[in-house]
């Protein structure tokens, strides 16, 4: 549909404006992370740009510096002590390890299942697909209490053994990611023409060989996209980590501990929050092309 020139300009402006509204919270958040405390907590007005930017919030949360030491070094006299609790380096490590581990487990389990669902005809195929899909619909709250009890009983909680705690979280995240991974990968395997692996099998290749040598390499891009989505979903997960762990604190769980009864440390919250967004932003731009397919579990393609 052709629009007249002035209408077209109006539309461009509106499109840019709406997008700007949606970008505003992210911008505001990042802006607050470099504000000194006095600029965040100004009771009389909202401070926009008239402040001296500071990196202190990042230094404390990401590098583990002490705020009081930084204040003394800068010649500002005594700073507020007791910022050890805001050092988030171990949380970032927890989040990274758990998300990467969960992605690895998910892919190892999901790739073969997706291949079988894409290529083989067998009884109960639809039932299995529905079972997988059902995991996407299941509220995590319904399974978390028995898992907490079972982990406790097995000595697998992070309070018993930190590394087993990592493993426990990875495994439950793998279940959470499974439906997206399986259904998305199935749709990518469906895109690889069947003739190719049928030809290979006529030449005497086993299923395993056609899978490893033909289908897998041809679906590489799709597998990467599925892995990226699994990583992002694990990175952003909150409920399961909150209930299941206490020593291990993934970034989303850590950040809400900065809300305290004596006042919220907005500087640290915004700094860690900004840092927590970065991996997601990078990854989403990488898989932009497959995003719709991923979010709709393979049922819509772009």
């Amino acid at each position, binding site marked *: 549909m052709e629009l007249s020139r002035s209408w077209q300009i109006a539309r461009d402006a509106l499109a840019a404006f709406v*997008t700007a509204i949606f970008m505003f919270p992210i911008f505001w958040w990042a802006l607050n992370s470099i504000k000194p405390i006095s600029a965040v907590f100004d009771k009389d007005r909202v401070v926009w740009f008239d402040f001296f930017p500071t990196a202190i919030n990042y230094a404390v949360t990401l590098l583990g510096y002490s705020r009081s030491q930084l204040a003394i070094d800068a010649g500002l006299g005594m700073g507020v002590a007791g910022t050890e609790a805001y050092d988030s380096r171990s949380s970032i490590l927890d989040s990274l390890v758990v998300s990467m581990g969960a992605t690895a487990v998910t892919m190892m389990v999901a790739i073969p299942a997706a291949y079988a669902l894409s290529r083989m005809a067998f009884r109960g195929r639809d039932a299995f697909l529905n079972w997988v899909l059902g995991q996407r619909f299941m509220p995590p709250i319904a399974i978390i209490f028995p898992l907490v009890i079972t982990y406790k009983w097995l000595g697998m909680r992070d309070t018993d053994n930190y590394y087993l705690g990592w493993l426990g979280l990875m495994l439950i995240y793998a279940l959470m990611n*499974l439906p997206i991974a399986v259904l998305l990968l199935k749709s990518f395997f469906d895109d690889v023409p069947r003739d190719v692996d049928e030809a290979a099998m006529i030449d005497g290749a*086993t299923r395993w060989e056609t899978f490893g040598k033909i289908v897998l390499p041809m679906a590489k891009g799709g597998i990467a996209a599925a892995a990226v989505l699994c990583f992002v979903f694990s990175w952003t997960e909150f409920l399961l980590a909150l209930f299941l762990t206490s020593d291990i604190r993934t970034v989303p769980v850590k950040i809400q501990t900065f809300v305290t009864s004596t006042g919220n440390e907005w500087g640290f919250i915004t700094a860690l929050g900004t840092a927590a967004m970065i991996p997601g932003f990078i990854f*989403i731009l990488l898989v932009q092309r497959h995003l719709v397919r991923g979010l709709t579990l393979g*049922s819509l*393609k772009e």
Partner: protein
Amino acid sequence: MAQFFRESAKLQLLVMTASVGSSRSRPNWLTSEHPLPWLLPASALMIVFGVYPLIAALLKTLYRKNAATRREIFDPLYNWTKIFEDPRMWDALWHTLLYTLIALTFQLVLGMLIALLLDSDRKGYGILRAMMTLPLVIPPAVTGMMFLLMLNGSFGVIARTIIGMGLLPTGYSILGNSTTALAGVMLAEIWQWTPFMVLIMLAGLRALPKEPFEAAAIDGATPIQAFFKLTLPMMSKVIAIAVLIRGVDLLRAFDYIKVMTDSGPGTATETLTSYAGRIYFGNSDYPLASSVAILTLVLVIITSTLFMRIFKVKL
């Protein structure tokens, strides 16, 4: 004759080796030709972390937790009668449904409008569409904190703007007031997930065939007529899928509520999931918390099944 015997002996050997070969090979269901080995790892994961905990949670609801002795006594109906007589559960159910319906409506309508706006091949629109996807990957707990900051009555930028327009009294705390707290939480929800709708609607719009629209334009149909008579009906499958996926997520809303209001003030923003969490963190009454959790599951199953039947969607 000798030739014949040699040939038949060769044949015999061939048959023998073949039969030996097949009897020594593994049974069919252990080879890669059978689906079982392919599906086994995923099945194991789903049984151990999906089926088992679900059954365990169901069994748990049949026990009564004695607060004094901390023992669990078999009493199948105790928790179920307790939660159905519990006004707090009904409130939580009401909040869950309200939250789902309102947020879903906003996300759907806004998502559709923004998708229509951004559906253009002109220069720069690709960047706008890419920017629009960014909120999707922010951890919801962080989004909750973002809006907690912006909705703060004394220094939050959104709250100050609303107060500045004279819509709310000075220093009014949106999240601290039971009449507006749920709306505040919904704002975060709507901000983060409207892009989800935009993205899916855009995919739907881009897949539409061009011809019907050209024909309609020639027949003199207005763009609004074309939208309601052509776009909407042709997009119905896409819309239904988006609503289903979002709706299921909304019914189990937890992250924003936990971070922004912790179900409060009082129980003003308590949903089923956050109520279950509160019981669990409050007095570790696993059986009662499990009943509320199972109820959330039942709600999700009923609504999604009904939706899929009525609108004939399949994922």
